[in-house]
């Protein structure tokens, strides 16, 4: 009997075609590409947005550099929330972003973080805690491409201890991986995003916030993509991001929120 086999092949082709062309997510969802440091804040932001508009956001977390490459090659996102304002600027320059939608939604804050069982008195020693002989490794984001890593190096330099701790530095691919190096005990200290340091898995640890004037601002910015399918929804999400409610959420998750209008004028 040849028929069943042919029939099966035909059926499987049809099925795979159906699966392949199934629309990815309902039309009601705004597809957001977001920097990894938003992991916890965006859950609440998404819930707030949904309450206001009835629409959901569908978030992909990742490295902003990867997203830039993916968006340049046609990745289907509506909004891009980048940990580094340079990336959305690049998209704008390349004509891949909706003109005039670039919005700096937050500034990242960095802390020195140590596990709860450390014997070092971080609050008292602040910078000098990193010079303690029991600190063999200090995890930071990779300064070559992770904005939090760049800020960490700049801060260490302005504290005047970069040369002393340089040999102890290990580099996470992104700030979340740097956090993992310390949380797993392989590094004894880390310079991490405050948003991660106060997240549920890490909030038990000790932390000391690094003053913002020791490093260039970690400017986080959103932009609507030219290829966005639901431009109105994306605009509504951006409007929500600018609202007092969203600003409060961002602050509670460890970001500083710039005064509207000020930084965009300053950075242009």
């Amino acid at each position: 009997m040849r028929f069943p086999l042919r029939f099966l092949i035909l059926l499987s082709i049809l099925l795979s075609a159906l699966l392949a062309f199934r629309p990815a997510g309902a039309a009601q969802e705004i597809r957001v590409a977001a920097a990894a440091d938003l992991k916890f804040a965006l859950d609440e932001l998404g819930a707030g947005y949904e309450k206001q508009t009835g629409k959901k956001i569908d978030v992909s977390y990742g490295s902003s550099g990867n997203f830039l490459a993916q968006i340049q090659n046609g990745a289907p996102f509506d909004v891009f929330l980048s940990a580094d304002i340079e990336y959305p600027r690049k998209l704008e320059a390349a004509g891949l972003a909706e003109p005039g939608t670039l919005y700096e939604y937050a500034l990242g804050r960095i802390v020195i973080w140590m596990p709860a069982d450390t014997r070092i008195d971080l609050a008292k020693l602040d910078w000098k805690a990193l010079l303690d002989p029991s600190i063999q490794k200090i995890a930071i984001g990779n300064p070559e491409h992770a904005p939090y890593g760049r800020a960490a190096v700049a801060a260490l330099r302005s504290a005047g201890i970069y040369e002393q701790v340089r040999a102890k530095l290990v580099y996470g691919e992104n700030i979340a991986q740097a956090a993992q190096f310390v949380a797993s005990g392989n590094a004894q200290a880390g310079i991490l995003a405050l948003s991660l340091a106060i997240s549920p898995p890490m909030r038990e640890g000790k932390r000391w916030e690094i003053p913002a004037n020791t490093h260039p601002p970690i400017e986080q910015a959103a932009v609507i993509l030219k290829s966005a399918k639901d431009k109105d929804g994306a605009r509504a999400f951006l409007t929500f991001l600018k609202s007092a409610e969203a600003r409060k959420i961002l602050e509670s998750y460890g970001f500083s929120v710039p005064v509207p209008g000020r930084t965009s004028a300053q950075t242009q």
Partner: protein
Amino acid sequence: MNIEALLLSIRLALCVSAILFVIGVPLGYWLAYSRWRGKFLLEAIVALPLVLPPTVLGFYMLVAMGPRGALGKLWYAAFGHGLAFTFAGLVIASVLYSLPFAVQPLVASFETVDRKLLDASAVLGAGSMRTFSRIILPLSVPGIITALVLSFAHTLGEFGVVLMVGGNLAGVTRTVSIDIYDRAQSLDYAGASRTALLLLVISFVVLSTVYGVNRRAGRRAWAQWPLK
């Protein structure tokens, strides 16, 4: 192009292939000839790195190497520092990661050795060690080469595990795949492509050498066929 990273990767791949050869031959022999009923469990464990995502394996290694992990505790006691972010740590993680690529070709080639030859060897008074070194090993040369080369090539291109336990230290743990990734992340696509191209060429040369050598070795084995 980052020659330092490439040389580091080659050094890592050589260390890992050598260690896997030493571990893989006895392990493969046991897997091929043991009649223990629980053998399939060990086979499954050896094959696990094929299935586990490298980042997961790397994460487990990171935890195991930490001060609370068994491996980390031993290492701290012996050397006074951690195992993560060191070359030795990369070697250990890579040995685990590439284990099936060494063991499986060895088992396959040990298994295909004709039982009659083994029986003849035993009847003529050879012990199992002598049978192994005189009969099984020479007949398994293609499998051994395949095992060595696959471990080498697989370690050379390794990314996820190194990313998880390496810490990206130049000359210590920044392997060529990490270097390529860093360049792509820094939007230096041209630099990334140059290094990637070099890696591609090296890998192609290594693999085609092996397949070429194996083809000839295979023909020789085929020529012995009527003797079986």
